[in-house]
């Protein structure tokens, strides 16, 4: 789809060695060009996002109409998983665990970091490619293999993981499906680690002359901090995965306490293990992971807001200090996911405090983005619509996190639908909207053509309304006390009766939202050949990626760019145009 790889007939590039024309495999499959790898990540990530969404749509049938047979397609899943078209509770758990895992690790992060990070970052800093192109290719291969393992796990005896994306022990150790999940995670973690090394080194070393850190586009800062989170937070999960694999395969008792009874049988193991150890190691990663989910999104939104307000971002410096501080703090808040584990008041107070403190930089960044709109000449194109919607949606997500941050308030809310509502607001109409915005925004750079605006606006409006229909009721359901991961959505509990009907509302919202993704999918593929052709800088943007041709050739820039000013010089008094590009002398 992109011809951004080698073109041996282009005019001679300043420091380019003559390349012989690469074969199809070397150009599109085993490429070391960051743009090809970025597109590989993006497309694979988008496919996984839709697949993970489909898993959820299946679950939502069971939640809306517990015990009812799924019409038309119910028979496709076999008699073990859906006997007579009715979902088996184990299958429900499989869908739930894999939905979470796929969305987070195979969908959002690969698209946000692997896709946008790889494609845009080197261009935005004026580099020819990443510092370690072959390592980049390896990181995609590991991701791909991890994804294959995760998908294949559905077909193993016992099925895929069914103990939540959190893989809590001891349940995860005695349940089927976890071994493949753990092995898949090891591959995915390796991919992220390799990628992180590349991003950090590239950002520091390969930035253009004159591009100081405080002249970086905010997107670059966001990716830079994210890379540190991946680098330092993932290894403990890798260690934990090894320990859980040992418990499953070698009969060790790292997480298994003595005297465990499963299905009436005593488990004969050495005992002495601590289930909380898993939780600590898991959340040590998983908390920074949620910032990995949001930071690139903030970066994308910042770029699009600056560009479509024709103004510099308000409070750039505060945003930079905030994102760095946020990254640091994200490592010392994790036990707020463990308030209900019997922690004493001193440590609970510690984690509560750090969690409250971490909300400050988020608010600063959100406020800066909102204030950037003041007095702006706003262009309401599709990327900007998604970026604008991100702001209140992330706001709701963030604010609803506050009660969860307090040890006491968490007691009635922990593991209820309230939590699901909270984190989905941040990730779904939050991050995923930002990712959609990024696709519409950078598509012209990657392909040389625009996506269709009408289809884009339909995609936006439908998705925006449906997102709120799906997730807003969850706060009500959660406040009523309905737990998450219940196979019937709370139907067996009398206290849930007044709110049960909301489950069906959320389900219909999800199914209709699926329909509104169709214009996006059509648009994405149709525009490759039929989209309006554009030049280098269709958005009249200031950042350096727009100095390269659309799409950029191998090596990106004919002459190495130099940065002469900050990243958002829009509407500069006295300038000839309403924007002065960063790389223009």
């Amino acid at each position, binding site marked *: 789809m992109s011809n951004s790889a080698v073109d041996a007939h282009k005019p001679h590039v300043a*420091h*380019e*060695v003559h390349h012989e024309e690469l074969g199809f495999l070397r150009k599109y499959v085993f490429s070391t060009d960051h743009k090809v790898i970025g597109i590989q990540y993006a497309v694979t990530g988008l496919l996984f996002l839709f697949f993970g969404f489909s898993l959820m749509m299946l679950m939502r049938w069971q939640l809306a109409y517990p015990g009812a047979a799924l019409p038309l397609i119910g028979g496709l899943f076999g008699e073990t998983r859906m006997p007579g078209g009715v979902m088996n509770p184990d299958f429900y758990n499989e869908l739930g665990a894999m939905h979470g895992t796929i969305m987070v690790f195979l969908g959002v992060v690969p698209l946000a970091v692997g896709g946008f990070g790889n494609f845009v970052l080197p261009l935005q800093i004026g580099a*020819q*490619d990443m*510092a*370690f*192109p072959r*390592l980049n290719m390896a990181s995609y291969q590991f991701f791909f293999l991890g994804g294959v393992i995760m998908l294949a796990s559905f077909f193993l005896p016992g099925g895929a993981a069914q103990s939540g994306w959190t893989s809590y022990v001891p349940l995860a150790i005695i349940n089927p499906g976890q071994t493949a999940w753990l092995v898949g995670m090891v591959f995915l973690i390796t991919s992220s*680690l390799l990628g*992180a*090394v*590349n991003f*950090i*080194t590239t950002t*520091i*070393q*390969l930035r253009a002359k004159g591009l100081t850190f405080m002249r970086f586009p905010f997107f670059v800062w966001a990716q830079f901090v994210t890379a540190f989170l991946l*680098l*330092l*937070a*993932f*290894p*403990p999960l*890798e*260690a*934990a995965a*090894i*320990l859980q694999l*040992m418990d499953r395969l*070698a*009969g*060790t*008792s*790292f997480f298994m306490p003595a005297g465990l009874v499963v299905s009436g049988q005593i488990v004969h*193991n*050495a005992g*002495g*293990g*601590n289930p*909380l*150890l898993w939780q*600590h*190691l898991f959340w*040590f990663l998983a908390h920074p992971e949620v910032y990995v989910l949001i930071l690139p999104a903030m970066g994308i939104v910042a770029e699009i807001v600056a560009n479509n307000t024709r103004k510099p971002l308000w409070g750039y410096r505060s945003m930079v200090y905030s994102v760095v501080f946020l990254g640091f703090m994200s490592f010392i808040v994790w036990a707020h996911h463990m308030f209900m584990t019997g922690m004493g008041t001193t440590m609970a107070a510690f984690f509560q405090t750090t969690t409250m403190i971490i909300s400050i930089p988020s608010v600063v960044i959100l406020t800066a983005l909102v204030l950037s709109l003041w007095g702006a000449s706003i262009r309401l194109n599709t990327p900007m619509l998604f970026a604008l919607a991100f702001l209140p949606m992330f706001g709701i997500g963030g604010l609803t996190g506050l009660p969860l941050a307090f040890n006491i308030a968490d007691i009635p809310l922990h593991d209820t639908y309230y939590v699901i509502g909270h984190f989905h607001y941040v990730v779904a109409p939050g991050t995923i909207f930002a990712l959609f915005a990024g696709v519409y925004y950078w598509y012209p750079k990657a392909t040389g053509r625009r996506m269709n605006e009408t289809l884009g606006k339909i995609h936006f409006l439908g998705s925006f309304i449906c997102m709120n229909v799906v997730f807003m009721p969850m706060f009500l359901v959660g406040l009523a006390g309905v737990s998450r991961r219940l196979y019937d959505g709370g139907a067996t509990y009398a206290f849930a009766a007044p709110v049960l009907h909301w489950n069906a509302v959320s389900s219909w919202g999800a199914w209709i939202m699926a329909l509104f993704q169709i214009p996006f999918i059509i648009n994405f593929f149709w525009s490759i050949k039929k989209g309006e052709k554009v030049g280098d800088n269709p958005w009249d943007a200031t950042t350096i990626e727009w100095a390269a041709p659309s799409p950029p050739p*191998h*090596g990106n820039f004919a002459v190495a760019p130099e940065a002469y000013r900050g990243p958002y010089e829009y509407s500069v008094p006295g300038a000839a145009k309403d924007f002065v590009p960063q790389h223009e002398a």
Partner: protein
Amino acid sequence: MDIPYTVEVRRDTGLTNGKIGIWLFLASEVMLFGALFASYILIRTGAADWPRGDTILNVPLATFNTIVLITSSVTMVMAWASLMRNQFGKFRLYMGSTVLLGGVFLVVKYFEYSHKFHEGLLPSSNNFLAIYFTLTGLHMLHVIGGMTVNAYFLGPGAKQWKTNPTWFANRVEHSGLFWHFVDLVWIFLFPTLYLL
């Protein structure tokens, strides 16, 4: 396309890409082994009783292994120093010794492990053994990885000395940093598991 700062340093950071890359990777390894040490702490403090290392494990053998690994660290850094002195022959000697000593380490570990298995002492027997096998097992994988890279620089990779000696020396230095890190982990593993 030539990626800049592969061989020469970037002026403001004073570093090559590879140097930064390897240190970043080592930082992630610190967190990996750190998590396992944290696990050790949690499991040991939660245990009713915990055997002293020397009651189960072979301290003389492990002391020997510690000496072997530290020596291999010296030969590794001498291998790099030889390149800096333009003494390729000495490089081969020292690098060869490093790989050899790594092999000795592995052989000793093989004897340790097989002796334990022979006595019916498995990872599943108790948590002391579980963490022992896991920590030393992961460490061993790192030894093998380091040896493989070093063997590459001794063998097929050595061609690069003729075409780009500075890049070759840098890569040997980076491999050395990894090898020293493996030694460093053992320096902490040895007393923790065997002596405490």
